Each structure stands twice: as structure tokens, then as C-alpha cells.
């Protein structure tokens, strides 16, 4: 049977064998946790505790600022030893609350079990907001904002992203296998809010065990399990929407414009914790993997654990890494060192050796059009990059640079090693700067 898919895309080696069979392991607490106040799309939170204060696990330590923002919580109980700028995964130093764990790891007392049947849709969304739930696929968009589409954009299809197309990463896979109840409860809760006509969980066909398990568990439920062709970036929102519904999100638009909402399966599990147990989002599964780490694992980590701690828990390094990536090899953030903490969107920590890094010098474009074939958004990366390089901002915008999802398929296939994504990002920045200057 032919599986659904999208146009374009690439087939990088999936490298999931390092960890796909390994059960999730709990990660012990480090000596110091650094919880950044900005881990999400939207305004950073504002610290609402003081140095010297004792905080309980799950206590709010940063309040949300505005609607597109979420609160930040203490990942364990302990003392606030500092509120200062600390190295952040995004590359600069940003404000963070530094906590010294007291070892008790005791939950904040005001958590209680709630029967979701007793809540209205709005109350449910508020619980999700209070728990700081953000998209766990990596983008970290506040879930409560996504759950509040305007009334003129009704959602008729609710999609769950169990695709995990990034090579090396297996955290969503293990969540679906080991915590399927939490995931499916979250699916039900989100369906309660959205009231969609169709609920689908999309899973790439390279996870037959997860597909079989969820099919069995959803046999009597109005939830469709949709196996998808294995291709990167099937897990990208717009590509998942196309494969599942045949609809294209319009240029510059959002999924709600075609009546769809997409949530990651781990986000669904986080919603369950938030709504039914009142637990804020303070932990997640992170795949620590790659040829430079001794014992690759799927670790259940707490937000704020420093990367060097994760490395230690995974047996240490095989050798000095050539690259440290928070996320997957296609769209992850390269890190300057191990001194940064994991944040809510950190689905993986990839350690590559020097020899694993491809470092060919850039050559001239030979107009082979491999990038055009690979682009899942039907763009022409070579042309956008050429305009961006020459700072021709109008043309960059005309050729739809803003529709680029920065998936990296073009850079991956380019035989001339042209840094296409970097050029397109450069172009996007120029387009945005021009728009901002026009408003001044």
C-alpha cells in the first residue's frame, strides 16, 4: 500500500539504531540547574522569585509576559542562588534563574488531581498556559495560544505529530511506546478543546512498533493512526498537513487557515500532566546520541540541566567533539560549549566527532537544481540564495524567502557545498529589517 507523503524532501541515513530500542532512563539531578527565562517563542518570562528564596519543584519562578508567553517553573526543589545572565542555547547570554537542588525533589503543594470532565474548554486552556506547555517538537510555541484560534478559523482536523523525521532522534518514538496512555489522554483532552471532525496521529513507517501499539490502543477510539512514508522533513508541520489532508497552508499563512491544528505527541503528554495533575512542564525526554558519546540514551531530563551533566550521565565522551548540537543534525542549534542548559524544546543532544563534520569549501553553483527538487516548500533555494548574497532584498522577498522552513534539505543535497540555508536566513533577516525600517 502506498503511503502518503509530500513533494520534495531527502533521505538522510536515519541513525536511529543508536537509541530506538533503549527505554527512557531517568537522569539524576546535577549540582546546579540553570533555568532560562526565555525558552519559547514569544516574550521572555519575568523572574518572580528572589535570590536566597527556597523554591519547591514546579513552583513558578518566572511569570509570563503578555499572551504569547508562558510562565517558567523550578525543575526541582532547592534554593535560588542567582538570577543572572547565563550562556543560553540560542548562542548569547540570557537571564536565567539558577537553582541549587536540595535533593528532596518535593513537588509544590498546590498540585491536585482534576477530573477533566469538570473543566470547560477555557479552563483547560488556562491550565495548559499555567503549566507553561510549549510545543515539544522543538519550536516551543506556547500551546495555549495554538489552542485559541479565532472563531472565524474553525479547526476540523486535529493532527498529532509522531513523525520524528530528524535523524538520530528517538524521544517521541519512545514516548509513544512507553507512555502511550499519557499521549492518548492528551489527544483526548485536546480533541475536547478543538472539537475537530477528524483526529489523526501521523507516524513515520520506520516506527512499526509504535504504529502497531497505538493502532491497537485506538481500535475503539475515533483516532486515526496514519503511517507515513519515511522522508525528511515529513515531521515539518506543513508537510504533515499536506500528507494527512492533501491541503496546502497558503504562503504566509498558518495551519488554522486550512482548518488544521498540529501538536507534537510529547506536547499531548505534557497537556495530560498539566490538566489532570496540575504539573507544570519541567521535564522531557531528550535523546543523547552520536558517535562521540560513549553510551547513547533516551534520557528523561529536567529543564535547566547543563549539557555537561547529560554527557557525564551518558558515560562521557569518546573524544573531543567536533560539533555539539542541541536538536537534530538538520535543524538543531550548534552549541559553543557544554555550559548551556537544556530547555523545553531540547529533543536531542547530538555529539559528532571531528571526522563526522563535512567541511568542503564553497564552490560555484552549477545550476543542477538538486535544491529545487529537494525543497519541500516548492521554492528555488539557489535563486533565493543568489539574491540574498547580493543583498537584492526585493527579489529575495519576491522569490518567497519568507516561506522557507529552514529544513536544510537544500544545503544537504548541494554538490557545491553552498551554505544555502545560511544565505536564505541572511535574506530573510534583510527582508524583515527592510519591513521594520519601513515602519519607522
Amino acid at each position, binding site marked *: 500500500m502506498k503511503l502518503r507523503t509530500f513533494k520534495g524532501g531527502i533521505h538522510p541515513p536515519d541513525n536511529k539504531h543508536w537509541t530506538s530500542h533503549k527505554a527512557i532512563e531517568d537522569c539524576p539531578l546535577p549540582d546546579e540547574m540553570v533555568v532560562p527565562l526565555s525558552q519559547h517563542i514569544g516574550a521572555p518570562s519575568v523572574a518572580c522569585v528572589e535570590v536566597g528564596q527556597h523554591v519547591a519543584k514546579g513552583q513558578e519562578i518566572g511569570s509570563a509576559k503578555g499572551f504569547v508567553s508562558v510562565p517558567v517553573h523550578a525543575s526541582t526543589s532547592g534554593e535560588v542562588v542567582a538570577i543572572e545572565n547565563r550562556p543560553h542555547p540560542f*548562542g*548569547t547570554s540570557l537571564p536565567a534563574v539558577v537553582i541549587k537542588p536540595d535533593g528532596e525533589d518535593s513537588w509544590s503543594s498546590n498540585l491536585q488531581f482534576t477530573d477533566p470532565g469538570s473543566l470547560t474548554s477555557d479552563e483547560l486552556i488556562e491550565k495548559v498556559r499555567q503549566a507553561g506547555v510549549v510545543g515539544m517538537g522543538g519550536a516551543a510555541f506556547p500551546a495555549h495560544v495554538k489552542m485559541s484560534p479565532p472563531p472565524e478559523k474553525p479547526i476540523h482536523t486535529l493532527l498529532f505529530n509522531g513523525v520524528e523525521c530528524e535523524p538520530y532522534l528517538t524521544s517521541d518514538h519512545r514516548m509513544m511506546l512507553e507512555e502511550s496512555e499519557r499521549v492518548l489522554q492528551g489527544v483526548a483532552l485536546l480533541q475536547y478543546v478543538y472539537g475537530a471532525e477528524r483526529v489523526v496521529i501521523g507516524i513515520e513507517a520506520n516506527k512499526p512498533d509504535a504504529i502497531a501499539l497505538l493502532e491497537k490502543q485506538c481500535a475503539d477510539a475515533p483516532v486515526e493512526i496514519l503511517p507515513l512514508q519515511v522522508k525528511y522533513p515529513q515531521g515539518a508541520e506543513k508537510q504533515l498537513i499536506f500528507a494527512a489532508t492533501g491541503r496546502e497552508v497558503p504562503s504566509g499563512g498558518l495551519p488554522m487557515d486550512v482548518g488544521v491544528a498540529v501538536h507534537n505527541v510529547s506536547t499531548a503528554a505534557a497537556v495530560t500532566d498539566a490538566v489532570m495533575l496540575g504539573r507544570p512542564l519541567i521535564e522531557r525526554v531528550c535523546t543523547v546520541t552520536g558517535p562521540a558519546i560513549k553510551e547513547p540514551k533516551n534520557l528523561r531530563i529536567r529543564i535547566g540541566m547543563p549539557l555537561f551533566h547529560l554527557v557525564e550521565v551518558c558515560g562521557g565522551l569518546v573524544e573531543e567533539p567536533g560539533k555539539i548540537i542541541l536538536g537534530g543534525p538538520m535543524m538543531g542549534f*550548534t552549541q*559553543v560549549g557544554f555550559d548551556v542548559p537544556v530547555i523545553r524544546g531540547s529533543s536531542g543532544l547530538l555529539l559528532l566527532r571531528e571526522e563526522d*563534520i563535512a*567541511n568542503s569549501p*564553497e564552490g560555484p553553483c552549477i545550476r543542477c537544481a538538486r535544491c529545487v527538487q529537494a525543497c519541500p516548500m516548492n521554492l528555488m533555494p539557489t535563486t533565493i540564495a543568489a539574491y540574498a548574497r547580493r543583498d537584492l532584498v526585493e527579489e529575495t522577498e519576491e522569490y518567497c524567502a519568507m516561506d522557507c522552513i529552514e529544513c536544510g534539505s537544500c544545503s544537504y543535497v548541494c554538490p557545491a557545498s553552498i*551554505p544555502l540555508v*545560511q*544565505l536564505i*536566513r*541572511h535574506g530573510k*533577516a534583510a527582508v524583515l529589517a527592510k519591513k521594520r525600517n519601513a515602519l519607522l
Partner: protein
Amino acid sequence: MTKLARILGVEAIVMARQTAVVLCQGDNRKAQLKFRYLGLEDCNAAQRIAGGPKACPGGCLGLASCQRACPFDAIEMTADGLAVISREKCTGCRKCVAVCPRNVIRMTPYESSVHVMCNSHDKGAAVRKYCQVGCIGCHICHKTVPEAYKVEDFLATVVYEQDAQAFEAIPKCPTKCIRDFNEGYPEGSTFLPINNDKSDAA
């Protein structure tokens, strides 16, 4: 000139001649990197990646965006990755200033040849760690010639309106951070100062 200004519909302002200067001498051998940058050879693109590969937040990145922006071929890159601007070729168009993400290129009076070659406001101890020739904010230049130097936020700058005696502080600077361009351009540069010795003209 005022007639030309009238025709063009702009106001003609009398200004002393200005020239652009890259206030940095931290090339690959003197300044440290915080990571190896593999990507587009462009200063703005590099700056976007974790604030740029240089450990110093204010120093020249050496990826030649200014050289490419200059319409007058006034900028060269030394073999060790430092941008240097020819005082004679610079016409003061400011295109290099606009493109530099580090704000390390400044417009200075052409008559002023002495410059503090540093753009980092980090404390002295931090600067010492990542650069051999950075300004550590020790105030010695200011103590030597008070009217010619001001130190703000751990960085000294020449007060160009009163810099007649500024050259006296050059041998006193512990990191050799102050340069008189009349004596020579930064290490690795092929530019030569125009001989200001009037005795030759006679």
C-alpha cells in the same frame, strides 16, 4: 560647492575631512576565537551565529564585508584576518561603517592620526584573556595626556578635538593598543603612511 548643493537641493555643510578607521588590531594571531566558524564568508552572517566566532565581542571579524562594500578599494585584509583602511584612499562615504556588524569602524578626523585600536568594553581581565593587544582600561593614557584621552566603561578613546599631544601616551600603553598611523599601519598591512616630514618638500 554651494552652487552644486543648490542644484541638487541639499544643504552644503563645511566639514573637516574624515577617514574611516578599524579600531582593532586583534588578528588571528593576537585574538582568540570562541569557536571555529564554518559558513558563509560574511561578517553579518557570522555575527548571527552565537554573536560571531571571535571571543572579543567588539573586535574585527576579518570576513571582509567592509572590503566588499568599499567602492574605492580603500580596505585591505591582512594575511592574518584583520581589516585595515587606507587613510588616503578613504573618501568618507561610510559604506563600510554601515555594513560592519561590530561597529568597529569609526569615522575620525583625517588630521587625527593617533587612535586607540580597541572596541571592547569588557573589563581588563576579560580582555587580557582573549586578546594580546586590547584596551584593558588601565587609564595610563589618560594619566599621561589627560586632555587627549577619555576612558569610559573600561575602554579608552582619543578625544580628537584635543589630541595634539596624544602620541606621548603611545609608549606608555601596556598592551601597545594605541597607534599613530603617521608612523605606520597595523602589522600585516601593505599601506604606507604619507611622509609628513616637511623638510622633504623644501
